[in-house]
């Protein structure tokens, strides 16, 4: 099958899905717009500036099917393994909410954490004004396709003034059941004024499949939201994710993205400050070895005065892995007294590993403080020698330094069970990466 034929096939699938009469009108409308846009856009190709270094041809050459609601044993096991010790667990198997694998503890009155499919019906008054409003179906082909297939995902609503003390863990598990599957999970987080919450979006799986996720995050005035994205897909998986936030006055968004798995992973993470005094911190850590490809595109749009943004992305690339970092920071004419800092640091552990890093600052206001930087390097040889001179052998010295490089970001994660999970994952993953050094 040619790429064009597959795209055509998917267009038909998407169009058929958009006609499902059982869903509310606003969802049907979103699917219809998605299907129409996808028919025009197709999957993003390298001719687009934002997709210059990430080629989806390999994805377009395969065919993927939507999975039914069956729960393969492998998926149930993965869901069990990836559980965090406390808090709320929302488990999705091949894109469908799995209530039996989930655990919901009591939430404060008015707060909601559950399946988006259910919320579309039972909380339409909250869902309808936000769904498809932040990640527009015309953003690109992957967002369009997700809209066309919008069916389920996580929904989190925190009412005004409410603080959720326990993290909400949204676990997306993919397990191909015979045929390579695709999922288009859609997550909506609505944080009311002066609310506080932590949401973890984690992706795991086994076999060949394609995750095409979209997350929309609306922060009310003074809301504080921490959003973790943990990508631990299978080694054969394709992972595309678009996360877009909009922030009202004095709100704070902490975005942490950790990318460890997948053959090809691309995350587009954006926020915009719609009112004065908003703040965000964007942290990212990506590890890739063998022939993995990992791409992060971030965008922070300072539209209003007195915004603060901090961004630190770190990558470790080994084997023949390739990485992409593109960090856009916009400071619009009204965004006076903006304070924006961005940094991207990369460790290349082999001659064949590569990174394309591009900070992109566009500043249209004059009273601002902005900085950016990018580093690409090998391990600090002085540090390696220092450790060896104390009796630590070369392999351990390298491991220690690589671990330290990654650890800076892991230690910034203040959601304890997640931090412990990642510490354990890195403890097994890092030695493998170091071992790939010839």
């Amino acid at each position, binding site marked *: 099958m040619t790429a064009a034929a597959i795209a055509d096939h998917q267009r038909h699938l998407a169009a058929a899905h958009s006609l499902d009469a059982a869903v509310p009108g606003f969802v049907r409308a979103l699917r219809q717009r998605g299907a129409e846009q996808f028919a025009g856009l197709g999957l993003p190709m390298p001719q687009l500036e934002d997709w210059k270094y990430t080629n989806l041809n390999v994805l377009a050459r395969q065919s993927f099917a939507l999975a039914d609601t069956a729960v393969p044993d492998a998926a149930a096991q993965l869901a069990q393994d990836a559980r965090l010790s406390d808090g709320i667990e929302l488990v999705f198997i091949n894109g469908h909410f799995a209530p039996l694998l989930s655990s919901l503890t009591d939430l404060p009155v008015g707060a909601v954490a559950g399946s988006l499919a259910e919320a579309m019906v039972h909380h339409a008054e909250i869902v309808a004004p936000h769904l498809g409003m932040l990640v527009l179906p015309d953003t690109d082909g992957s967002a369009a396709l997700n809209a066309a297939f919008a069916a389920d995902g996580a929904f989190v609503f925190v009412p005004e003034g409410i603080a959720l003390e326990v993290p909400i863990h949204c676990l997306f598990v993919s397990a191909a059941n015979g045929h390579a599957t695709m999922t288009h999970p859609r997550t909506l987080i609505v944080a009311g004024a002066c609310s506080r919450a932590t949401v973890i979006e984690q992706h795991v799986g086994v076999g060949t499949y394609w995750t095409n996720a979209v997350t929309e995050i609306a922060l009310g005035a003074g809301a504080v939201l921490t959003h973790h994205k943990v990508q631990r897909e299978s080694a054969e998986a394709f992972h595309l994710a678009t996360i877009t936030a909009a922030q009202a006055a004095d709100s704070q968004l902490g975005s942490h993205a950790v990318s460890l798995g997948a053959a090809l992973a691309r995350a587009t993470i954006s926020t915009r400050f719609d009112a004065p005094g908003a703040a965000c911190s964007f942290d990212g850590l990506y590890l890739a070895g063998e022939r993995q490809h990992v791409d992060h595109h971030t965008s922070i749009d300072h539209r209003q005065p007195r915004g603060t943004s901090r961004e630190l992305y770190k990558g470790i690339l080994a084997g023949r892995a390739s990485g992409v970092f593109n960090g856009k920071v916009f400071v619009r004419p009204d965004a006076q007294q903006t304070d924006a800092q961005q940094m991207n640091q990369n460790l290349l552990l082999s001659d064949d590993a590569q990174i394309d890093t591009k900070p992109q600052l566009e500043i249209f206001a004059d009273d601002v403080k902005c900085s950016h930087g990018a580093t690409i390097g090998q391990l600090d040889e002085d540090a390696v*020698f220092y*450790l060896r*001179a104390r*009796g630590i052998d070369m392999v351990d010295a390298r491991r220690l330094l690589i671990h330290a490089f990654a650890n800076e970001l892991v230690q910034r994660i203040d959601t304890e069970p997640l931090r412990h999970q990642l510490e354990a994952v890195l403890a097994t993953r890092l030695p493998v990466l170091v071992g790939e050094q010839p």
Partner: protein
Amino acid sequence: MAEIILEIDDLHASVDGTEILRGIDLTVRRGEVHAIMGPNGSGKSTLCNVLAGRDGYTVTAGTVRYDGQDLLALAPEERARAGVFLAFQYPVEIPGVGNTYFLRTALNAVRKHRGLEPLDAMDFLALVKAKMKLVDLDPKFLNRAVNEGFSGGEKKRNEILQMAVLEPRLAILDETDSGLDIDALKVVADGVNGLRNAEHAVVAITHYQRLLNYLVPDFVHVLAKGRIVRSGDKALAAELELKGYVDIEGAAA
């Protein structure tokens, strides 16, 4: 006479094709403290780095025997485990690596080499806290990253702490006194003196004589243009302090 621990014979070494060491001869026995003095550019740091095994230094002739084995054939970590310790002139900051974890990993690597069981976290902590008193370093430094944000004096004390914990048989101090105020200098000298016994040897490289007021050497050697041009006892250091290196350099030319 005590057993020879380090024997350097006609050592030549170059950096980027430029010969820096041009025939060093030095014999150190257990229990001895040797001071090597010399002007800038005489090859003091190169000698330290060659002994510790840093990359980028090429030995073009000569031999170094340590405790009966060919030191130059060993990797840096093997030298450290065999009991050679270099106190760095510029200790490296290593963000993200905790001082405690680093030091325990190092100590257990050395202990393993000596056929000893690794120390667990509790025993290690007791040991290191006792040693910290010796070098007057606050235990809070244990929770910080290796040398990160340490002042110059704190870094040097951290070097001496590492030495006290690892208990080397041959300690090489590369201008450990440089940049220290008089109090820090005393602490460093006390730390080294605390290790002095019939088994251990110290080679202290220094530009100034003042360290030697506190760390009294058995032998003083003057290095100039890559060779040891004079050797004597501590009186030689006092003479150099008075006259400077000018005559010596003239003689070496």
